[in-house]
């Protein structure tokens, strides 16, 4: 075999290995195909139907986006922090934590606290920066204190929900790559379809119905009411948002904490 043939042979072997790994990873396979198709459908319809500048307050799209950016920051920060579960498992630290004199639920809760605190802090920093920019006009329609309390509650509730969801997935998915892919598959459509980037009110009925099944919709709605809106017309309402977000966050978090972690 010539030197060039040996090189091609080595490339062939490496390619075969990576392709085999790709096709064996069902999460990678499905998410890599489904994600672009879902985004095409959701974002395409959303932008076409919903993003009419006159449909946001005074045509001020930048201020409209603040709530969506807060939710997006919480989403990615919380997901990234939750991935530390895999780092701990791969470094062996998870085993060290689990042989301590605490139940697995206590350890998982402790680890989730980190994700919740980091995700909430980063999201609230985005809010603070947005509030300090003169070009962004926040309404604070319930007064600054109450509106801020609502925003903080929303952000913490959202991070609790995301942390629970991440734990449920991490207890079923063995690799960090698979975890990220599935999270992307779940989270990107949820984000685009939550009212974060365009109002939901003008979407076709079936899409609006799907948006109501999306937990992030209630977080965005609550933040819009607290920070951006100058009334409640076209919104779901503070009571509904708090009830749905709170219930889902608690349920997912408790479910996630009851899952036994995959040690190896």
């Amino acid at each position, binding site marked *: 075999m010539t030197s060039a043939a040996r090189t091609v042979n080595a490339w062939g072997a490496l390619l075969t290995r990576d392709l085999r790994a790709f096709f064996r990873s069902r999460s990678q396979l499905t998410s890599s195909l489904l994600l672009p198709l879902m985004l095409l459908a959701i974002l395409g319809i959303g932008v076409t139907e919903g993003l009419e500048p006159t449909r946001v307050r005074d045509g001020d799209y930048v201020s409209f986006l603040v709530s969506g950016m807060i939710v997006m920051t919480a989403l990615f920060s919380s997901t990234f922090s939750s991935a530390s579960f895999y780092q701990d498992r791969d470094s062996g630290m998870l085993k060290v934590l689990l*042989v*301590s004199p605490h139940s697995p639920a206590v350890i998982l809760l402790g680890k989730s606290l980190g994700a919740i605190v980091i995700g909430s802090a980063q999201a609230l920093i985005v809010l603070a920066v947005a509030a300090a920019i003169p070009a962004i006009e926040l309404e604070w329609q319930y007064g600054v204190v109450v509106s801020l309390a609502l925003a903080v509650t929303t952000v913490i509730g959202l991070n609790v929900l995301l942390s629970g969801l991440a734990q449920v997935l991490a207890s079923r998915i063995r690799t960090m790559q698979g975890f990220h892919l599935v999270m992307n598959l779940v989270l990107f459509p949820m984000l685009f379809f939550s009212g974060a980037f365009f109002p939901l009110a003008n979407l076709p009925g079936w899409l609006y119905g799907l948006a109501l099944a999306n937990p992030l919709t209630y977080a965005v709605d609550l933040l819009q009411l607290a920070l951006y809106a100058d009334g409640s017309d076209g919104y779901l309402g503070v009571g509904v948002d708090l009830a749905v977000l709170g219930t889902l966050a608690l349920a997912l978090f408790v479910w996630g904490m009851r899952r036994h972690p995959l040690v190896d």
Partner: protein
Amino acid sequence: MTSTNGNKAQTPALAVRDLSVAYGERLALDGVTLSIAHNTVAGLLGPNGSGKSTLLSVVAGLRTPRSGEVRIFGEAPEPARRRRVGVVFQEQALDPVMTLWETLVLHGRLFGLGGNTLRRRAEALLERFGLASRQRDAVRTLSGGLRRRLELARALLPSPELLLLDEPTAGLDPDARRSFWQLLRSVREEGLTLLLATNDVLEAERECGTVAFLHDGRLVAQGTPAELKRGLKHDSVRIECVDSDGDGGRANALAQSIASWPGVGGVTSAGPVLHVTVDDVSTFVPRLFQTDADAIRDLRIQPSTLEDAYFQIAGASLQAERAQEATTA
């Protein structure tokens, strides 16, 4: 730890009864019963996949057995009682971005230590283990030997009474290995009970007061190294046979021939390699070469060791199992 308390000394540090663990359909541990006395060093000896790490993981509380029970100092290994147990895992288990100090503080706090007690204990262990000057360094900057020392210091931080060690010196160079064992011996003198899983026969023979042989998830023998070697012939001969067909055929043929010779004890084979214990190598070796010199690629002679005992006992166990299966069939 135990000598001043009669009841405590009578209760085994670890008692495992009829323990079975399955991974899917495969039994990783099959009815293992084992008892380890206070203030002793016990070894679990067996090849890779024999169930050593699985047994330690059950004792540590990481894995739930299919059946059987574990008692640590007479108590079920519930989470709250794990503060009496320290673990050093087979693979290194450290966060590479944490400093040595942070590593110990995290562990101490998980085990309920805090304040001055934690600080004093961590400082003392870092000093004793020669790590004090590196305490502000990230773990990733440590050599393999120093990482092992840190893991041992971490396991000892909450003052455990039973220390589980899963092949703790695997992959260490001889200096690091010697240094690690010097530290272990020094902490042993403080009354710690050690359970060491290893496939290093010399290490087990040198360091352990009692040794348990695990084979295919079953405990095939338990005793002191001297008891386990009792009955072995004086010398051990390791014969590597020619194996051009890759099926160990010549080794098997030679083993069958050798087994009936006078003065020959146990004959076990692993692929092309035979382990034979004999009374007198001066008569055995010439006869071996007269029988089939062409079959022999390499031959080594040494006094019988715990390894020979392991091969003999594990081999006998396997033969008994096959005979039973044949009878049942």
